[in-house]
């Protein structure tokens, strides 16, 4: 009798649970079957009326029924739960995502990191040098003698007779070469200072990156190759570079490096004043007098060096028109990077 009743309840339960569509219905069914005063409870109570020898069997049947009903309940709860998450009117999936505020790395840092990464792939090790330097490293060792008009281009801030704030990162060339023998392949990013009148293209504090490669048989062709690969990585595959003869005391031959304007790809636009070309920096073969200053055999070794303004590169890359923005730190500007 218990068995018949059990089967009946189970069949009905299966049907009703399958039909249940809301969690309220499911709850009602739970109360009906598994609640304190529910059917299972009733069945367990009714076992008392069964003859003693039949009680164990009846009890087992009741337990099995309870297990089966519990399983049906849980399955229904899971099913309804999933559905209700999807269709609840209180949840608006079109709301914007929750965003903890994002900070921003300064464009000069970004640019320096990118430049170092590019040169690292070409085998250049990143090194640094002091900003407060000696006159010898900033001038004489770089083939800029005292009382020479070449010094005009490298006006400096002085601290004592011999100590100054470096006006170019080329000082690091000397620092590296005086402590190491060739082969040398380094880039040196860093801060420089010049008492320049400040305007959109000049600041008294600025950043440069210097490159130096010295070995037996290094040629101008190697310099061209390295800089072209670099420019392609930095801007785009179709960028071209050109070299115009120039003068730096520490290189011979010397050149100014131009690249095709990233904005118009060399066809001419406002950014490049219609010429299609923009200045990138300076370069050349290391002057033998520099090798002499650091004790290298200028007959055995040759090398090239190049220097670029980091602000300049950042301005080209990001289309920034005024150099003063970098140190103004207007958060409305910084937060765009």
């Amino acid at each position: 009798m218990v068995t018949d009743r059990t089967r009946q309840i189970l069949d009905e339960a299966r049907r009703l649970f399958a039909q249940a569509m809301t969690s309220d219905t499911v709850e009602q069914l739970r109360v009906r079957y598994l609640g304190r005063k529910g059917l299972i409870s009733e069945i367990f109570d009714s076992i008392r009326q069964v003859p003693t020898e039949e009680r164990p069997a009846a009890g087992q049947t009741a337990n099995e029924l309870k297990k089966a009903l519990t399983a049906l309940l849980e399955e229904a709860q899971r099913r309804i739960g999933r559905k209700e998450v999807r269709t609840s009117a209180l949840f608006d999936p079109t709301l914007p995502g929750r965003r903890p505020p994002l900070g921003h790395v300064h464009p000069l840092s970004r640019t320096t990191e990118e430049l170092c990464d590019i040169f690292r792939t070409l085998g250049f090790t990143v090194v640094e040098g002091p900003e407060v330097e000696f006159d010898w490293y900033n001038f004489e060792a770089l083939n800029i003698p005292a009382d020479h008009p070449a010094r005009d281009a490298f006006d400096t801030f002085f601290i004592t007779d011999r100590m100054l704030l470096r006006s170019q990162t080329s000082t690091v060339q000397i620092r590296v070469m005086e402590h190491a023998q060739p082969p040398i392949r380094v880039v040196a990013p860093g801060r420089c200072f010049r008492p320049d009148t400040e305007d959109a293209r000049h600041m008294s504090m600025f950043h440069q990156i210097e490159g130096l490669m010295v070995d037996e048989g290094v040629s101008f062709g190697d310099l061209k190759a390295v800089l072209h690969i670099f420019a392609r990585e930095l801007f785009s595959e179709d960028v071209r570079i050109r070299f115009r003869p120039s003068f730096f005391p520490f290189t011979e031959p010397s050149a100014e490096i131009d690249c095709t304007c990233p904005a118009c790809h060399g066809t001419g636009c406002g950014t490049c004043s219609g010429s299609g070309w923009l200045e990138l920096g300076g370069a050349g073969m290391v002057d033998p007098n520099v090798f002499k200053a650091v004790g290298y055999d200028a007959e055995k070794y040759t090398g090239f060096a190049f220097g670029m303004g980091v602000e300049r590169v950042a301005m080209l890359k990001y289309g920034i028109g005024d150099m003063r923005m970098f140190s103004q730190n207007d958060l409305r500007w910084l937060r765009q990077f």
Partner: protein
Amino acid sequence: MIISYNWLKELCPHDLAADALAERLSHAGLCVETCEAREDDWVLEVDVTANRPDCLSHIGIAREAAALTGRRVCRPEIKVAEDASVRFNGLSSVKVECPDLCPHYTARVILGVKVGPSPEWMQRRLVTCGLRPVNNIVDVTNYVLLESGQPLHTFDMALLDERRIVVRRAGLGETMVTIDGTQCRLSPEMCVIADARKPVAIAGVMGGLESEIRDATSDVLLESARFCPPNIRRTSRALGLSSDSSCRFERGVDPENVERASRRAAQLILELAGGRLASGLADVRDDRPKAAEVTMRFERLAMVLGLKVDAADVRRIFEGLEIEITKQTRSAVTVVIPSWRASDLTREIDLIEEVVRIHGYDRISETTRIPVTVAKMSARERCMRTARHLLAGEGFDEVVTFSLIAPGKAQIAQPWHDGGPIALRNPFSADRTHLRLTNMANLLGVKSFNASHGADAMDMFELAKVYVPRNTAADEQPEEKLCLSLLTDREDGFLVLKGALANVLEALHVEGSLSEEPAQVGPFAEGESLRLLLDDRLLGCVGIVSESMAAELDVDSRPALLEVDFDLLIEKARIDATLRPIPKFPSVERDIAVVVDEAVRWSDLRCCVLASSVEHLEAIEFFDVYRGQQVPAGKKSIAFSLTFRASDRTLTGEEVDAARDRVVAALAKGFGATLR
């Protein structure tokens, strides 16, 4: 230098239009900045580099144009008629007392000139080149300067004491008024042109007002000389005076042109102002620089450039530049350096540059193979990047501020140095005179700037150097300490910054124990700042800007600041974590809330718990402080969690409870803490 296209074409008859010429010159090393049409001429502004003083004249640039276009230079013919009846030696004399400062001095005399305006063709050329016409005598000297690069000077002989010249060092305290009206204080380092009594010109720089040519001048002394370049530069800088003459003497003039230019000027003066040229001249010469010979090897040229240049091309280039070839073999070529290139072309490498700049850099191909070598990122770089990007991810914006600041600003906070900052000798603005000792002052400045531009929430950091002096007077370089500095104006800013630092330490896997001690540093309020230490070494400080400092700096709200020695962090960073095995057995947590007096600090409670040496205590973590209804006045409730774990078994509930009770007992004993 500003030059006239027409004048240039007269000297070098090429067939290029003005802008085509400008382009050719620029691509060979003479950068033409602008090329503008003016009436029937074009004006080219040429940026002559310091190594090419020979191009500071029309003839010099004509030489370049000739080399580039395969033409010859057509120099003007110099034919001067001397009057045999008057001799220089009877009219004047020149004594050079300082040949080291003036290695060559020439003088000629022209008697009975008629001073007046110079002809229209000369005035036009002078004006085109940016000079102002004065009178026919002075204009001739300027004309010859523009033509061949030799600066000249003319004196009214009647105004020269004893009508003679002495080239000497200035005496101590001597003064002179220059033609531009400046009273100059002279010194014995300076070379002057003097008459019998007084200086009449600052040699190579500027003439004196007293002896300049005027309308009534009749007898003219014409000077053409060469001076010691570094000395002229020193004098020019010391007096703050520069001129078309001084900039040429500084760079060096052509020794072979000194006397020739004098003759050329005499020719023009006779032509334009009449008069009679006395025969003979003063020609005092101390040095006679010999033309140098330099040899260039073809193999070396090919190696340095990565390009082979034909011997025939090399020959053509040198000949075009008027560099005479004295010997040529299969392997090398030997040349004589012309006098006007003597300072610039002294070595084989200089000749190599001449060849390639005319031949064209674009002829050099890029090498296709560069030897492979490994370049690793240094620990320093990795630490900097990790910290930078981590902080950006946590909402901090990176700023870059000036290394040079005003001294008052420098003293706001001095976490690293008790003395004063390093001062510049020649600052160029009053608010950038000293090297900063901290980044924190600048961060406050950035906050002020942005606040006045409408910014609300600001979280920022700077990773940059401060300059800690060592023994500056003894030329000892300062320590350039890399500091990580943070600022926030959030409510709970102090704790936000401490948390950010903790995250940086974790991301860098910094080894060592961090400790803190209360300290009153710089701009921070009493009781609201800490000194931070890493293994008992000074790491930095953190604090909240005091009311008074905020008012003084005109900063609204009281931001929190933190600054740490990033070099120390780099030293202690392990970047790559050392893995520890995952614990085998689960941990058990117990949360505790104790009521203590207000004055009790978290660090004290924590120390007490750790000191109680309770077994299996893995971690203790603060999570709340509560004041309110359920807590008596003058007291607060601090809640924290204890995590227990044994490495060899699962701890039982009873063991953990007992441990917790021991902790509570220790706190009760130490602080009278009661459980809440």
